[in-house]
């Protein structure tokens, strides 16, 4: 038959193109979504989010934490504009859902990594400015920020 053939066949490997068009985005989405699910659902440690304790170091000769030196709320908020709700246990000031009842109020240890909690303890115990962490603190004597920067 002589005439114009509109749907001319080419050497294109069209079936593979069909398959890739469906499979590649689907697999990519599944893999990334699954990876994110695993990353976020497993217990994880946020670097830098170590427990704060009163320093026993003579660095700078300044002795201890000074609650009055907390950054301005506006500056802190501006620096965390993109932040959502804290996922840390206790959210910094209250009990977390995974903490035992009363864990936040327990004054003997600093396990939550909460700055404000430690500040409560420091202020509540009337700690002397240069006094190191209490011996009963299981984390006492270990550098608070050790191993936090790598992950």
């Amino acid at each position, binding site marked *: 038959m002589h005439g114009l053939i509109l749907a001319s066949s080419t050497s294109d490997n069209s079936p593979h193109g069909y398959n*890739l068009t469906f499979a590649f985005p689907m697999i990519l989405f599944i893999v990334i979504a699954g990876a994110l699910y695993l990353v976020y659902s497993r217990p994880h440690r946020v670097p830098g989010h170590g427990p704060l304790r009163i320093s026993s170091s003579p660095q700078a000769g300044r002795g201890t934490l000074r609650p009055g030196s907390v*950054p301005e709320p506006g500056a802190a908020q501006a620096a965390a504009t993109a932040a959502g709700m804290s996922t840390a246990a206790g959210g910094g000031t209250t009990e977390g859902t995974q903490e035992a009842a009363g864990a936040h109020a327990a004054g003997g240890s600093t396990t939550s990594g909460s700055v404000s909690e430690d500040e409560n303890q420091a202020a509540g115990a009337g700690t002397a400015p240069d006094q190191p962490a209490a011996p009963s603190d299981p984390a006492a004597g270990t550098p608070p920020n050790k191993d936090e920067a790598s992950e």
Partner: protein
Amino acid sequence: MSDTSQAPSLTPEQEEAAFYHEAALNSAWTGSRLLIASLSFGFGAFIFAFFYLKSLNSHGLWYPPKFTGPQSGLGTTIMVLVVVSALVQWAGLTRIKAAQRNAWLGAAAVALVLGVVAACLQLYQLVDLPFWPGSSGFASVFVGTEPVFTVIILGTMVYLEILIMRGRSIPPISFVEQPPTFAEAFAVQRFQAALSGFTVVWNYLAVVAVVLWILFYLVH
């Protein structure tokens, strides 16, 4: 609920500052992972185009027989520079935990130079390609992918420069001992969180560089 009356209350301003500080730490961790996922989708689009056009091979124009590809020596150099930069920065990170802040600063500076050189070489390659963007399917994918990757590398290096400047202002002892004030403790912890997030992203980009090198210089 616990009896919070045992602990003296902070002022609302202090409570809020502490809350947002912790939120900032968590957002650095979460954001870096989300960024990697986002970048994966972005690079996934180019990789899909690569395999789709290669598979389709319309009219044999994916990689024509007489087609001259990008300079492989230059491409290999760029990939190696990115990988070495990531390795050097990671090695420096292991030293900062031992209060050797200056060791990290040196490694970060080297990583910064390597990353910037890699981006500059990539730009040089793009302006001196032996083919036109529309000369083949491979050419179109290459010309689409590499500029994006270069811009991302440059953006990452800008962030590394910011981290270097932040790290210089922190005393080395602060990485192993509690700083004496909350303001300093906040600064150290946020730097650690930001540095960790950067390391994860930069290592990921090094892996991407290897993958792209394999695709464009070996698989095509």
